[in-house]
């Protein structure tokens, strides 16, 4: 049914994937996150995937300078930011070239023709203007519009220079999409007011551009259809939109509140973990002290010092930083003090691809220290899940007097989704009691259940004692070179860490309790696996999902669960690290599905692999 000129139809859809793409200076991350926040407040379920270059302001118009932000919003339960965008906003030729192949056939393609001059085309290595190719209009719903000119007109009254005025063009594009997807402008206007409150001229220009975008879209009937995406039937409760790194910070603060201890966060700036430091630095009124250290080693050492003095010492980093912290983490193993090491993984080795995602630090986290230095490892599955995972890491660290690694990654850390906020009374406190009793005090005596040693902090009269990196005599903690004692202490530390598994909740699978294929995952593969398994269920296949929050020590019931399925598939953004563990620890012939492209799995590619497994 062709719409009449006067009547633009409103179509109800259950999900949309939009990708905003432009220069790294074009404000695409801001545009995407504003669209996300507005959609969250409308009650959509959503997932995002910011994808940006390492260069803060790469040379304008270049292919490597393209920054993208993908948001998927839906009226149903979703788990990934979507495999293919329905809508691509390309602010320049480079953005078009990098992203066009991902756009769904027939998808909406909005192109800013204002940046398609000969020089722009040359920088993107286009020999001819791709907009002149008639196929573009046939394969996609092409909306070619000069956003630059429209922005200059819209903000003319503010008297801003052309250069400053053009900075508002992302808001104009955002306004257009707000109209196309029936979103109100109010949230973004409020946000702009708080951001540019002290710069009224800039504020006015941005608001004018935003409104102009919505008006142009409506008045010039830019889009053949206007869409509506209703709120998702999410479980009851209070929600907020949250990014992964922010949720880690919140979870760490909550964990320390539940432990009843102050939080000390020592960190050195590193992509993509710095946002955890930024977020915690704002929580000073929650008993949080942040310390931007001179290097990664100082960051972890200061955190160990803070734990020694009675705070929960936490440090955060990404893979290369974890390597630098390894020796100090071994010290924390030896002195048996709580420590949480947040590792927001990125693609490596070495500096690798700092802004791209990977989960290849699993074995480094578990084993990457000299000698036998066991350490629990907790992994977060999604941006919202970071809260609970961080809380779990704090719980283990203070309950067992041990360093813990919390694994996140760039995909989770920079992504965002709705977070069902738990009520304060639903979170179980784990209050910590420092050693106070001086009678018969032994620094390395152990709690019979957890094998944790007492936490005896400086300032407590009568408990003066010495700790250090030299091997400890059992009980007294004095330096000991006794061979039997060394073996006993190695074994004790290992038993203590293995005992953490006794505190896990029983494993729960998603899907049939037994069957043909179990897809086992950990970390950020959660959403893609869930999407793929859901599709397998729709096709009537016997496929289940098991996702590990506690990656080390492995859960006690893992082996028995895995054995209920004919095949175990382990997709990982590494060369098969969990697969190695499952094979060596459980003697289960798991099938590894590795991917190391700096990009997350797509649900469709996982579905394809599962189908292949089922067919063979």
């Amino acid at each position, binding site marked *: 049914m062709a719409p009449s000129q006067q009547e633009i139809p409103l179509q109800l859809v259950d999900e949309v994937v939009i990708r905003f793409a432009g220069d790294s200076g074009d404000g695409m991350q801001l545009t995407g996150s504003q669209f996300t926040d507005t959609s969250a407040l409308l009650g959509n379920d959503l997932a995002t995937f910011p994808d940006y270059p390492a260069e803060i302001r790469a040379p304008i118009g270049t292919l490597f300078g393209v920054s993208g932000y993908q948001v998927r919003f839906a009226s149903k339960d979703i788990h990934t930011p979507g495999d293919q965008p329905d809508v691509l906003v390309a602010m320049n030729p480079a953005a078009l070239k990098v992203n066009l192949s991902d756009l769904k056939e027939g998808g909406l393609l909005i192109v800013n023709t204002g940046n398609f001059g000969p020089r722009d085309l040359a920088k993107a290595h286009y020999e001819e203007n791709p907009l002149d190719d008639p196929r573009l209009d046939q394969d996609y719903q092409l909306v070619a519009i000069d956003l630059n000119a429209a922005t200059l007109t819209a903000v003319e009254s503010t008297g801003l220079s052309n250069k400053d005025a053009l900075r508002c063009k992302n808001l104009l594009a955002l306004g257009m999409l707000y109209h196309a997807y029936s979103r109100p402008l109010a949230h973004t206007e409020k946000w702009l007011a708080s951001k540019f409150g002290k710069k009224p001229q800039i504020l006015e220009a941005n608001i004018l551009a935003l409104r102009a975008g919505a008006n142009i879209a409506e008045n010039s009937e830019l889009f053949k259809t206007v869409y509506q995406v209703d*709120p998702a039937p999410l479980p009851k*409760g209070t929600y907020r939109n949250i990014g992964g790194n922010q949720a880690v910070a919140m979870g760490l603060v909550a964990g320390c509140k539940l432990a009843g201890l102050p939080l000390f966060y020592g960190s050195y700036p590193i992509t993509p973990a710095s946002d955890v430091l930024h977020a915690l630095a704002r929580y000073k009124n929650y*008993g949080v002290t942040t310390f931007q250290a001179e290097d990664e080693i*100082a960051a972890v050492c200061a955190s160990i010092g803070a734990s020694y*003095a009675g705070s929960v010492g936490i440090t955060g980093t990404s893979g290369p930083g974890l390597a630098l912290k390894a020796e100090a983490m071994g010290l924390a193993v030896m002195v048996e003090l709580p420590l949480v090491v947040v590792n927001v993984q990125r693609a490596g080795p070495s500096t690798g691809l700092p802004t791209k995602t990977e989960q290849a630090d699993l074995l480094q986290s578990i084993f990457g220290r000299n000698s036998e230095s066991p350490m629990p490892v907790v992994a977060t599955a999604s941006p919202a899940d970071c809260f609970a995972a961080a809380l779990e890491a704090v719980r283990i660290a203070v309950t067992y007097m041990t360093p813990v690694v919390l694994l996140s990654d760039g995909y989770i850390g920079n992504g965002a989704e709705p977070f069902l906020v738990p009520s304060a009374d639903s979170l179980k406190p784990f209050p910590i009691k420092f050693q106070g009793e001086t009678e018969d005090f032994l620094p390395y005596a152990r709690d019979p259940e957890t094998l944790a040693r007492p936490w005896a902090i*400086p*300032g407590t009269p009568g408990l003066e004692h010495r700790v*250090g990196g030299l091997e400890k005599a059992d009980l007294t903690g004095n330096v000991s070179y006794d061979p039997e004692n060394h073996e006993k202490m190695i074994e004790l530390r290992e038993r203590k860490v293995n005992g953490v598994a006794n505190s896990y909740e029983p494993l729960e699978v998603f899907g049939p309790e037994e069957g043909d294929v179990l897809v086992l995952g950990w970390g950020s593969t959660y959403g893609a696996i869930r999407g793929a398994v859901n599709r397998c269920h729709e096709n009537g296949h016997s496929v289940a999902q098991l996702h590990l929050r506690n990656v080390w020590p492995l859960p006690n019931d893992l082996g028995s669960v895995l054995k209920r399925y004919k095949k175990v598939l382990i997709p990982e953004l590494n060369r098969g690290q969990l697969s190695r563990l499952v094979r060596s620890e459980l003697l289960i012939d798991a099938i590894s599905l590795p991917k190391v492209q700096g990009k997350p799995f797509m649900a469709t590619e996982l579905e394809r692999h599962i189908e292949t497994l089922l067919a063979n």
Partner: protein
Amino acid sequence: MTTETPTYKKKDFVSDQEVRWCPGCGDYAILNGVQQAFASFGVPKEKFAVISGIGCSSRFPYYMDTFGFHSIHGRAPAIASGVKIANPDLHVWVVTGDGDALSIGGNHLIHAMRRNMDIKVLLFNNRIYGLTKGQYSPTTVPGKNTPSSPYGSLDEPFNPISLALGAGASFVARTVDTQIKHLKEVITAAHNHKGFAFVEILQNCVIFNDGAFGHVTDKEVRDDRQVDLRDGQPMLFGKEKDKGLRFTSKSLEVCSPEEAGTWQADGPTGANAFRICQACENGEIPVPIGILRQVERPVLDETVTKQVQDVTESLGEGTLESLLSSGETWDVS
């Protein structure tokens, strides 16, 4: 809780651990001096945290009956920083050596100085790596034959005092292992200083670098080879204090006691401290000991605590409830 000042004797700071330094090591004298000094401060002994890295000197915490932390190579200032920020009420002392502090841990040392953390660093300088059997260190005199420099060390050394001055330490002093009265005085001054205190202790290693500072510290020569700098007093040296020092427009020179300049540890730039610690290398000018610099600067652990208090006062104390209800929320019913 009692607020009485505790009275201690040296033995109250002696731990039950057997001291394992080589017989004749300068560290014994330093340990004795530190234990005596700590006993005199009137600070409850549970409030001392003595933190070390790796090396002969870093065994020190085991022998002190206080809270102690023998950590990893070079990292003691970083660990101490965390301890002090987490509990500013503690008296945090770092014991380190020339390799530990100036080589592997150089970065932590200069940044602790820059931040003016209220921690006290005792650097035992014996100009050699002792625990690893005698390699040249960042303070070894060029030309020295060691296992790792069999044809003579080629490295130029650091002057720890000028390094500390350059990094902006608010208290910089030097003393000698065997001059216990002076050592106690300097350590007491470090204790009383608000902010970072750096004390270089010239220390002998009888095994690998015997007589490292003999030309400065031996009884027969030390009156002529040392000048004990006292704030606000003339710079005098010699057995009978019969020689003086004074700054000239270009350098530093020996003069009569009447002409001697007055030492100021809190000069506006620290330029004189820098000049005198450099000049000592030329042989004619005596080696300065005592307090080379002492100034007041904002102390990081205090400013950190104050910022937390200020933010808490202005935003209100955060609770689990307020944490969970923060941000823009919506309800699904």
